[in-house]
């Protein structure tokens, strides 16, 4: 598949780490152009482009910006969600480490559009290198007059800071992130009020993912129509970073038009690892329900995957081959969600832990005859009953393993053991 990269065009050019190098590569043109436009015109263009959030929820980006109240005497904030923690996702780290100014530019355009004069880039605590790269780029941008009291000579004032998290998946949830930014436990807030009205420090706040913001300058310079020309349809537009991991020959971040099929993606990654058979895939990070190999032809966009009962999420595509025990995979993800639940809502605090226990015992060969029904009903009770989406996310793998891989789960319970030969990755092939 031929596709000229947009988001990743600079990643193999180390010169773009400096303002000068980035400018030489055409950078900051979008910001310069934006500063000459009415802020609302930018929001309109972004709306028209159909850009949807790349963090997981896929919320229309321009619409999010338009929720910020005009005027008012409260400061407004942009919080860039760089808390990339969804298992399987590593695309934002690549952007930040290799092309930090593209993020700074996207953030600056967004701030100008919504009237924010402060931007926090909330980066997950483990990304120390990316944070250092960003800090250096910010200093450079301040020195070059791209940030500060007079952005590129326009009179627009903008401060931008890196704020490091400290290890909590839930801080990727936007209100959990705001709590964390404010120095608290990252427990998501009850909504309404939504962050656009009461966000960071009680003020109107936009929260956007790194990849989402990196699209913005291109929409400004090349127009909404160009952006819309890429993708499946009107609602699934633009270039997309697919972070592919697991059992493929060349895992990595691939920029492709929205709506590439899974099989195309596997082919681009050099095919299945050691030529094995595809068994299952997770199309959008740990939260996305697991799909069977029979669905390999599916278009990897927001709406097609939603219709298939899964989701594009962060487009973290995990490929599982024939040697993978699905119960084991689901149990591992269940353990992750149990570890990451913030603990405030009853169904999530108790349910994520219970799901991990039940899947764990099935995997170890101690499953009960009633465990399949239990999983179905438990996950039902965890769906849509909590403040944030973590509980629903945990349901993704926990329920889909029972629904989509029923026979394998049943076999675990019936035989009281894992029916697959024990695999070691580095050991010599099979049995240990």
């Amino acid at each position: 598949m031929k596709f000229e990269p947009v988001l990743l065009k600079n990643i193999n050019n180390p010169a773009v780490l400096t303002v000068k190098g980035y400018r030489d590569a055409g950078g900051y043109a979008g910001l310069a152009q934006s500063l000459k436009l009415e802020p609302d015109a930018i929001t309109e263009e972004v709306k028209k482009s159909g850009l949807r959030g790349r963090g997981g929820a896929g919320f229309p980006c321009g619409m999010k910006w338009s929720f910020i109240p005009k005027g008012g005497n409260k400061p407004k904030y942009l919080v860039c969600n760089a808390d990339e923690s969804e298992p399987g996702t590593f695309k934002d780290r690549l952007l930040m480490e290799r092309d930090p100014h593209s993020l700074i530019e996207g953030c600056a355009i967004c701030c100008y559009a919504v009237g924010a004069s402060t931007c926090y880039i909330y980066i997950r605590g483990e990304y120390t290198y990316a944070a250092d790269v960003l800090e250096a780029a910010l200093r450079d941008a301040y020195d070059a007059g791209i940030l500060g009291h007079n952005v590129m000579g326009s009179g627009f004032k903008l401060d931008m800071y890196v704020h490091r998290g400290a290890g909590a998946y839930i801080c990727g949830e936007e209100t959990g992130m705001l709590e964390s930014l404010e120095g608290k436990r990252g427990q998501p807030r009850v909504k309404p009020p939504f962050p656009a009205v009461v966000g960071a420090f009680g003020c109107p706040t936009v929260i956007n993912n790194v990849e989402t913001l990196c699209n913005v300058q291109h929409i400004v310079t090349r127009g909404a129509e160009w952006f819309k020309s890429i993708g499946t349809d009107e609602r699934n537009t633009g270039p997309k970073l697919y972070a592919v991991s697991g059992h493929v020959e060349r895992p990595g971040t691939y920029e492709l038009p929205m709506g590439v099929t899974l099989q195309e993606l596997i082919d681009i990654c050099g095919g299945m690892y050691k030529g094995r058979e595809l068994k299952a895939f997770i199309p959008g990070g740990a939260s996305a329900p697991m799909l069977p190999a029979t669905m390999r032809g599916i278009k990897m966009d927001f709406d097609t995957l939603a219709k298939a009962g899964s989701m594009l999420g962060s487009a973290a595509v995990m490929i599982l081959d024939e040697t993978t025990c699905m119960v084991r995979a689901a149990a591992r993800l269940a353990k992750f969600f149990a570890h990451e639940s913030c603990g405030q809502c009853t169904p999530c605090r108790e349910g994520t832990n219970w799901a991990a226990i039940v899947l764990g015992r099935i995997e170890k060969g101690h499953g009960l005859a009633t465990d399949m029904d239990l999983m179905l009903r438990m996950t039902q009770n965890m769906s849509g009953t909590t403040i944030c989406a973590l509980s629903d996310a945990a349901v993704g793998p926990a329920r889909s393993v029972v629904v989509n891989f029923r026979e394998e789960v049943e076999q675990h319970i019936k035989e009281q053991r894992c029916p697959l030969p024990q695999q070691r990755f580095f050991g010599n092939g099979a049995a240990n």
Partner: protein
Amino acid sequence: MPTVTIDGRALEVEAGTNLVDAALRVGIEIPHYCYHPRLSIVGQCRMCLVKIDGMGKLQTACSTQVFKDGMVVHVDHPEVKAGQEGVMEFLLINHPLDCPICDQAGECGLQDYSFKHGQSFSRFSFEDKRTYPEKERIPLGPNVLLNMNRCIQCTRCIRFTREISKTSELAFFERGAATEIGVFPGQPLDNELSTCVVDICPVGALTSTRFRFAERVWYLDKKPSLCTGCDVGCNVTLEHRLGAIKRYKPRFNPDVNDYWMCDYGRGTFERYKQLPRLAAPRVRRAGELTTVSWKDALDAAFNKLRVRGGSEGQPAILGSGFLTTEEAYLWSQLARQVGSPHRSVWVDSGPPRHIPNPQGGITGRDAAPNRRGAELAGLTPGDGGFDAEDLLVGDAAAQCSVLIVTDSDFGKAAHDPKVIERLRRAKTLIVLGWADTALAQAADIALPLATHAERDGTFVNAENRLQRFARAFPATGEARPAVEALRELLARFDTKFTADSAAAVFDLMAKQIPALAGLTYSSLPATGVVLRPTPSSPTVSGTDTTALGSAS
């Protein structure tokens, strides 16, 4: 005001009312654990899920406010029922179900709701239950014990210390299924209101060190009462068994103590255990204390009091802030009968005790509940009359023919041998009260009275709010409510005097005291009534000594 429809019943509510409160107004109880009307809304127990027309998912009633007309809410709905059952199951899977040894049993939100909203079987295998080893009995502070295994992480206690006591001792630690509540090492839960966290804990995670294992709650009888610890006048539920108070729980009154009361107040009934009870009337005969009948004792008192004027001086009455308003009124009437200006009240000043309420709160500075009521009812010195200080510090007692001290435990001075010796200089010392103190031992006539749990009456608090309390159980032994005893004493002066209950005395008094004009005992509002200060002195008007109905 917007209209909301809940289970088919339309009602108007103030804009911003949440659905838990709105439903309650039409008698629909939406189950909840984390929601508390005085704490910030966190919506995290997920028990109050309701169905709202036009919204896909179930919504938490506590965090849904009514702003616009037309919201249609369903509580009695299969989806809601399924949601509640789901939440109950999640809450119970890790709960130890140790009700037989849990102090909360009988007043536990988990028991109540699992009965109403749960299912009768568990799908959780016992061996998988989460436990917090070594965390079954952690003292969080001097008054509160934590059993983490029972906690349902509702955070009411945490929010209480942040938002009401403003001491922030408690916080959530860890996260996920390991989330627990606790204090920072070396900074215990130790504030004046700390036991309130036990009241608001919906389960048996927080229990009161004082009450723990004292009694099974279903054996307790309850009566609305008032705390006697200070002049805030906290409304309490007095819980008792077999003639003994077992605990006080705050009783909701938004104008006074709201949902709260202080730790000191909760312990005040211990006083009834610490001092010996004055069991029967006593008269000193030939220097010896002799137990006598009430009739003989009252006759003796009457005989001492009826002697008027002369070199022996006049009778004096030293009242206390523990008198009810009605008792104080009767004592002031007695003073008028014997023509004495020596009427006063002594109240220790206590450390200030602040109880928050939506108006900001009330600070009590007296160590007794009813100085204001006693003074209002006439226990203030007349012209040339001795005040309490003259009697307690000066040598006024020596100039009195009879000194009546009520009560025997009126304050710290009642236990000071020097003060007792000073009071003893009156020609005759009459002491009344429930406690057999050294002061009562020193009296010529000692009369056993009912405690406040054993009598009816009113107190007037620091904000001039008159509140009524009721007898919880009969007085033990020979002790009697002061109002009854005083009726008999006053009847000896005036045979027409018949008011022998707090209600009758109050109604009589209301006719005499402008500040009480128009009030009757039976119609006093449950939350009390603020007395308007009148332009003239807020005491018994004029010098009418016929207040009892007729002059002798």
